[in-house]
């Protein structure tokens, strides 16, 4: 526990007769809030720079006996000693000024409340009631615009309603670094405008919809769907990336209608990304599996739960099994899978990594990630942040915003090691070290850091042999902190819960006998029933199933095409139990399919990349679906080796008793950096908005995804004889794909492709990882 720093620069002032003491630099409007005095405002926002655009927060101010000649905007005035502020509560001038400003704001504001989505939760409505006059004296004609217009496929702009507070333009420019909207024209015609050819395709555009104080910016997905009083709101946690954003899920009649960003100053402040905001339709698609399914005569047929559980238990009974959890399970579900594998199936063959992985990564996670307590606040105080194998804007947008905040605030120095100098890196003003994929380890070895530095490592660094070892070595040498940021919300939780072959819950290494005894005792099972050697990883489990060594597979939310060269032979031969939401490549080959609850349909928790547990309650009240852990508990019961819990609370409680292992962590042996491949190599990663399965059925969101292009630099373009926009074909022994070229800031002889765009599923179509050699030619 660090001691609370005593504040030295404190200012005392009087507001409405009450004295208040606040730190220097506090704005008058904030100081008033500390006293519980709410000065009406529109453009002011605690996270945005003050601009004094709306003029609603006018108050009477006096300093040292001298009054300001006119009422002042309290959102732009920092406090001073001896300041005497009178708000609308005690000053007739301030009150009249505020009423006057409100009247002006309403002059051109259309009478749209009945058709406006903001009605019912509108600061303009509310403040017009509290701080406005009953009647307007305006008798002219209001200025009109064509309305609404799409400034992107998911954000609608109604220029008549806009009160020109500039919250949206300030957010886009300052916080997101995407000034694709700006104030155009002037006077009564002033309006928020895009450049028509460049729509508002920012990953953070949804935040402008949330902070707009009127109904000028609205989301096209939520348009006209509901009113605030229809909605039941539940605080929740985002299930997409590992940032751990706090959200609020609004449900009407059992359907999720929207998700707003929640307020969590330590994690996401008041922001989230567009994927977290709008990609929730997947829970409500028509092809949700409704009943258990059993394969009979080669075809899946509906079955009752008792029958399906019995068939599943029968299929798993006495067989050597493997468990694939997937990266999206909640902490409690992951813990259930981990216990199910050991206590019920008696195996360590369990892995949550349904994406490219390596042994080096598994050792690295066990030694350097599990149990680590690196937090967002470490970025706040870091002297240097290194990004390696990680593009924050695409893979963890809130980490991006956090780093960017420090870059703007105090010129935090950022280094990005990457084959492509993305716009995201430029927005962070990162020092760019261009390396071919695979050579990141060499670049890391050159860096000099301190123990205040943070190395942010993405999950794809595991595709560069030796990369993670170099991170570990750099951290050991300098004392820098390692922040491992996976792409999926469930991965850190699954790691801590032991849903991986070399770890038991709480970070206990499998190799540690005392740890095995400890867990066995907690689980009331024989201590020698936990296998002593580490289990197989996902790849090896599939391979073993193909060879017939593993005869049964328990698979959660896994898309085999997310993995490198998925081996389907094992799925055909082994007994496959699938716990899934919708039909998938796994259910097509499964013997038993059991439908599970989506995150809105159950309570649970996720761990952010920091290891911070974020709990949420069930948002959709009526659902037939159950959580993965409940279903596993039924099967475990049928197999005669019960899990010992069947509820989320029960699992959380039991996991809580095992969570703190103060024994030694696993050790880590370095791997050398591999030699670079010859010729042209592939760089590829997932972008935020792409063909991901949780983004289905939301065309508005998909419309703002980055265009799928093949990126090469001028050097490679010259070699190939291609110009910007030409078609190129990239091929390997496995397959080929063709895309248009966009010249970008890449290193020589590297082609970058999106990993999972509709036109470019590089992993699936080419079958190779980052750093692999590829053939590239002009044309088809």
């Amino acid at each position, binding site marked *: 526990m660090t001691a609370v720093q005593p504040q030295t620069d404190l200012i005392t002032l009087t507001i409405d007769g009450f004295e208040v003491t606040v730190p220097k630099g506090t704005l008058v409007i904030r100081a008033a809030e500390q006293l519980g005095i709410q000065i009406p405002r529109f453009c002011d926002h605690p996270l945005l720079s003050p601009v004094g655009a709306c003029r609603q927060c006018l108050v009477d101010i006096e300093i040292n006996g001298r009054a300001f000649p006119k009422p002042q905007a309290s959102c732009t005035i920092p406090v001073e000693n001896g300041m005497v502020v009178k708000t609308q509560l005690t000053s007739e001038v301030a009150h009249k000024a505020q009423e006057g400003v409100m009247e002006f704001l309403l002059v051109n504001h259309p009478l749209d*409340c009945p*058709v406006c989505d903001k009605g019912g939760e509108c600061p303009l409505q509310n403040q017009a009631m509290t701080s406005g006059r009953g009647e307007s004296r305006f008798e002219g004609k209001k200025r009109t615009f064509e309305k609404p217009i799409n400034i992107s496929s998911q954000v609608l702009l109604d220029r008549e309603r806009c009160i020109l507070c500039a919250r949206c333009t300030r957010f886009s420019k300052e916080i997101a670094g995407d000034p694709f909207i700006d104030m155009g024209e002037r006077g009564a015609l002033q309006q928020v405008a895009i450049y028509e050819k460049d729509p508002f395709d920012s990953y953070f555009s949804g935040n402008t919809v949330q902070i707009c104080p009127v109904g000028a910016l609205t989301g096209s997905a939520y348009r006209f*769907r*509901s*009113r605030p009083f229809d909605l039941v709101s539940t605080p929740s946690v985002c299930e997409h990336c590992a940032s751990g954003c706090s959200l609020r899920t609004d449900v009407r009649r059992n359907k999720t209608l929207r998700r707003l960003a929640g307020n969590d100053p330590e994690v996401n402040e008041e922001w989230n990304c567009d994927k977290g905001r709008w990609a929730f339709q997947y829970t409500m698609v028509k092809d949700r599996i409704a009943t258990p399914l059993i394969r009979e005569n080669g075809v899946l047929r509906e079955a009752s739960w008792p029958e399906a559980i019995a068939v599943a238990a029968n299929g798993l009974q006495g067989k050597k099994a493997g468990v694939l959890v997937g990266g999206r399970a909640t902490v409690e579900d992951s813990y259930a899978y981990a216990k199910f594998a050991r206590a019920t199936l008696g195996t360590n063959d369990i892995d949550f990594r349904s994406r490219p992985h390596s042994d080096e990564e598994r050792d690295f996670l066990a030694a350097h990630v599990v149990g680590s307590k690196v937090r967002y606040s470490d970025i706040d105080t870091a002297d240097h942040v290194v990004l390696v194998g990680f593009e924050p804007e695409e893979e963890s947008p809130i980490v991006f915003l956090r780093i960017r905040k420090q870059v703007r605030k105090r010129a935090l120095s950022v280094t990005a090691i990457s084959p492509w100098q993305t716009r995201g890196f430029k927005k962070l003003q990162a020092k760019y070290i261009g390396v071919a994929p695979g050579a990141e380890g060499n670049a890391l070895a050159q860096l000099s850091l301190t123990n205040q530095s943070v190395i942010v490592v993405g999950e794809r660094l595991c595709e560069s042999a030796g990369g993670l070892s170099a991170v570990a070595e750099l951290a050991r040498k300098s004392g820098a902190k390692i922040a491992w940021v996976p792409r999926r919300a469930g991965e850190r939780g699954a790691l801590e819960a032991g849903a991986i072959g070399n770890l038991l819950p709480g970070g206990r290494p499998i190799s540690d006998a005392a740890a095995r005894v400890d867990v066995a005792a907690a689980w009331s099972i024989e201590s020698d029933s936990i296998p002593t050697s580490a289990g197989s990883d996902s790849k090896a489990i599939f391979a073993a199933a193909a060879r017939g060594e593993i005869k049964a597979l328990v698979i959660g939310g896994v898309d085999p095409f997310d993995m490198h060269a998925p081996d389907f032979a094992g799925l055909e031969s082994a007994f496959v139990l699938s716990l899934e939401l919708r039909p998938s490549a796994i259910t097509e080959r499964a013997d038993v399919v059991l439908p599970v609850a989506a995150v809105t349909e159950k309570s649970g928790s996720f761990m952010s990349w920091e290891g911070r547990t974020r709990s949420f309650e069930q948002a959709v009240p009526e659902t037939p679906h159950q959580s993965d852990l409940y279903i596993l508990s039924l099967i475990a019961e049928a197999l005669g080796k019960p899990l010992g819990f069947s509820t989320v609370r029960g699992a959380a409680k039991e996991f809580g008793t095992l969570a703190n292992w103060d024994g030694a962590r696993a050790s880590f042996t370095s791997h050398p950096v591999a030699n670079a491949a010859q010729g042209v190599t592939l760089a590829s990663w997932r972008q935020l908005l792409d063909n991901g399965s949780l983004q289905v059925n939301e065309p508005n969101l998909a419309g703002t995804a980055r265009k799928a292009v093949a990126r090469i630099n001028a050097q490679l373009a010259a070699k190939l004889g291609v110009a910007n926009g030409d078609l190129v074909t990239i091929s390997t022994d496995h397959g080929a794909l063709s895309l248009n070229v966009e010249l970008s800031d890449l290193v020589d002889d590297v082609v970058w492709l999106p990993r999972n765009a509709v036109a470019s599923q590089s992993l699936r179509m080419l079958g190779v990882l980052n750093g692999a050699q590829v053939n590239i030619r002009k044309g088809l």
Partner: protein
Amino acid sequence: MSELEPKRAIDGAAEESIHIPIAGPASLFTQLKGFWVTFAAQFKKVTTVQYPEVKEPTAPRFHGRHQLNRHPDGLEKCIGCELCAWACPADAIYVEGADNSDEQRYSPGERYGKVYQINYLRCIFCGLCIEACPTRALTMTNEYELADDSRKKLIFEKEDLLAPLRSGMLQPPHPYYPGTDDQDYYHGRVTEAHPSQEQK
């Protein structure tokens, strides 16, 4: 003490009983007086209304079944704003709004009521919804014969509540009257349908 003994109402009260006058049989005249009232009533005018053979007209502003009104050319007045649902103290109204487009237009303006239901088992006929409606789409008719025998039948849908098409009105969806916009409708300047509005 034995239970047969009378209990004292007040401890220590006087032994003698308190005399409580009980009305005995009334005089003959008083009894006959009552019968006269009944007899005379046979010859007085009866206020019973012989419903359903006779149906007294209701007052002009009677709170009866709701109606969703139309503009003179047939477009619905309801804009799906949900203010009536908000005002309803009995939570009897369910509304879902939806977008109008130029090709599929149900009401003037951007929004119309796609789903509109009133549950007459919840409705208390208070009329707060009518007061809330900003476009005068929702009014109450004088119809009160709503009794039915199942819950389902007493949830009236939009088609049950929409005012019937009068002559000169066209069934939506159809475009605006040529050369007009929503403001013209709200100001009452559109008084009839134009043949070009008919959507095939």
